[in-house]
């Protein structure tokens, strides 16, 4: 399998705190890779370094053979990295379809003049984007809700809409930050199946931050464990479950759904 994303000794420092410390990560094409770790382990910071929100102090992020750290986020999005957010960040006062249409932005090319003149090329593009956005809307299971403002959608629908928006630019790599946070077991199962189908149907490589171990163990091809900003283990779900360092640092006996804090306290 070819390597799609690679981080080389990526380090991000906030003041005196090293949030991400020399993390090496290799994700191959077509994989579902998970990043797990206790709260504050630096998972989201690593995501932010990959998607361009932060510029790491040290190290490189290599996507598709190109170094991308230091580029603006819109350039990185145009190269094919999309993401969702831990706390949902939709464009609240735009309709659901419009949210997805914004996701198509890197694939649209008409400037202010063609838009002003409504040239045939502009009409064509607009038509195409509307129909594609509605297809995506149906794909994530929000048919019939497309004209509602994003802020009026139920929680689960907002999570799905965020993924639909992220799929708009036809990404090669999708970063999902806690996609099942705040969901009940039933919704979680649906989301799990959905994530898998995104990979299978669209061929998108997915990196996942997740706390729900059932989800992580079920769908991941590769799991990386972060603790205090450092990668302490990496491997298949079975390897991770058997890894003494991980068990020591994190999982504990029978640790399927215990909260991070509780786990930590048990360790001490």
């Amino acid at each position, binding site marked *: 399998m070819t390597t799609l994303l690679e981080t080389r000794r990526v380090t991000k420092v906030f003041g005196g705190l090293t949030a991400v410390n020399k993390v090496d990560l290799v994700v191959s094409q077509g994989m579902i890779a998970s990043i797990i770790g206790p709260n504050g382990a630096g998972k989201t910071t690593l995501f932010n370094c990959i*998607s*361009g*929100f932060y510029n790491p102090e040290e190290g490189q992020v290599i996507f598709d053979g190109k170094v991308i750290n230091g580029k*603006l*986020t*819109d350039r*990185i*999005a*145009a190269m094919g990295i*999309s*993401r969702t*957010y831990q706390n949902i*960040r939709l*464009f*609240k*006062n*735009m*309709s*659901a*379809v*419009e949210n997805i*249409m*914004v*996701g*198509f*932005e*890197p694939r*649209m090319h*008409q400037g*202010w003049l063609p*838009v*002003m003149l*409504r040239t045939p090329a*502009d009409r064509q*593009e*607009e038509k195409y*984007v*509307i*129909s*594609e*956005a*509605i*297809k*995506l*809307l*149906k*794909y994530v299971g929000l*048919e*019939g809700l*497309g*004209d509602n*403002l994003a802020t009026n959608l139920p929680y689960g629908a907002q999570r799905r809409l965020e993924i639909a*928006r*992220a799929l*708009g*630019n036809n990404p090669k790599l999708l970063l999902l930050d806690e996609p099942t946070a705040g969901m009940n077991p039933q919704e979680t199962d649906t989301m799990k199946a959905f994530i898998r*189908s995104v990979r299978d*149907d*669209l061929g998108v490589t997915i990196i996942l931050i997740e706390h729900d171990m059932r989800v992580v163990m079920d769908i991941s091809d590769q799991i990386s464990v972060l603790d205090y900003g450092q990668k302490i283990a990496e491997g298949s779900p079975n390897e991770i479950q058997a890894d003494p360092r991980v068990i020591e640092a994190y999982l504990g006996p029978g640790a399927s759904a215990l909260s991070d804090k509780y786990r930590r306290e048990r360790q001490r």
Partner: protein
Amino acid sequence: MNNLHIQKSAKNGLVFAVIIIFLALIGFTVTAASMIQKVFGVEVSVGTMPKYSALIAFLAFIGLWNGWRAAKQTEEHPLQAGHAILAGLASGFVTGLFALGYSLIVGTLQSNGVNVRVYLSSLSPESIIYFLFGQSPLSGGFIQLSLSTVSAAFGALLVIFWDRSQHQFLIWKQKLSAWGNASWPAKLRRNVFVGYIAMGVVLLLLVILPRTWGSYWNYVMGTVGIYVLLGIGLNIIVGYSGQLVLGYVAFFAIGAYSFALVTAPEPHNLNWNFWIAILVAVVASAISGVLIGLPILRLRGDYLAIVTLGFGEIIRILIKSDLLKEITLGPRGIRNIAGPTLFGKSFSSDSDFMYLIILAVLLSIFLARRWQESRIGRAWLAISQDETVAQATGVDTYKYKLLALAIGAAFAGLGGAIFASRNQFTGPEDHVLMVSINVLCLVIVGGMGSIPGVILGAFALKGLPEILRELESYRLLVFGALLVLMMIVRPEGLWPATRPKYEENSPPPVTVEGGSR
């Protein structure tokens, strides 16, 4: 009903006491009474006070409101009639007591020969006597007290009536909307021709009105039109792309001055053609928008607001300064700016200008809608709602913000050029901060991001002060109060923006939907 309720009512009464005394002190009571009298068709002759019945009507109105609020405050479900009336009575009585006290103090001062007018310029002896219904301070005060108490009790009765009839209202409302959706109004609404006819009527009015309603209204409506232009421009910058730019007047000034400089005989004697000069003004403003945007659009929120605020002032002061006196004639301003010509004929009567402004407004509405209802408008909205995420979703935020500023500035430049041409003069004092604030207000009052909102807002903000001329010196006070009220009652604006319905209007899928796209 307990002590707490009585206390609440008394507090409510206190608020209204402050209102009544304040209005009396600034002399607004007399103005309001004469307005009421005028509404009923009886002119107030100069130098005399309006009739007492008008005063009673005004005080009774405030009393009703007082009782209404007091009774609402009991917050009972269901409302008990006795409690509501008691609350109204208590509140009205407290207000009345203060009115009595006020009457006693002011009346006694007056009868002891103290000229209160020295301290409060609006409090003339006549107005004091008027407030006391021509009686002695004590009996006048008691009239106030009883009026306040009785009208507040009636206000409470209104609440009871409202409470009892609300259910009935709801049924009527449902019936009405059901009828409206089923019967001929719905057919009318769905018929495309009705839309065309309505549009035709509006266009016809736009053609006829400037010829018929005289130069005063042409002037007022022309100003409204220019503010619509400015509003449409600022709406793109603030309402769509969400950049709080407070120095919008700078672009207005640049448009006005670049137009003036190339057409006026002084100081450069270029005498360019009107239409070319308009183009120059628009392009110059757009370019200035880009040039200013380049450094400052990295700022966000409050910082951007402050920097642009300063920028607006800098442009005005630069125009005024000795530094550019050779170019701009400094504080004197530029005179004899050219009016429009068409096929060599002058075209600058007030109705001609009105047509020009209407054309410009229609054109800008057309253009603004094209941009707003496209990928560009969506990108702007995305930026205004979450700039970080918009950029991470692939929106080139910097480019779009610059574009918004350039387009917005171009509209302001067009407005400025027409403004300068209509007045045949432009000077630094035409381009003060107040213009920016007015335009921002009209965008917010109308409804951010909505073009009909901008038009309504312009009428409300530039037209209403003209209509309120009756109120003379209280014009701005009333106007300010209306703004405050408006923002409390309807913070989303007069005509808030709605989003297009893409899914509803999309063609139905040809094939049965599958899993892949």
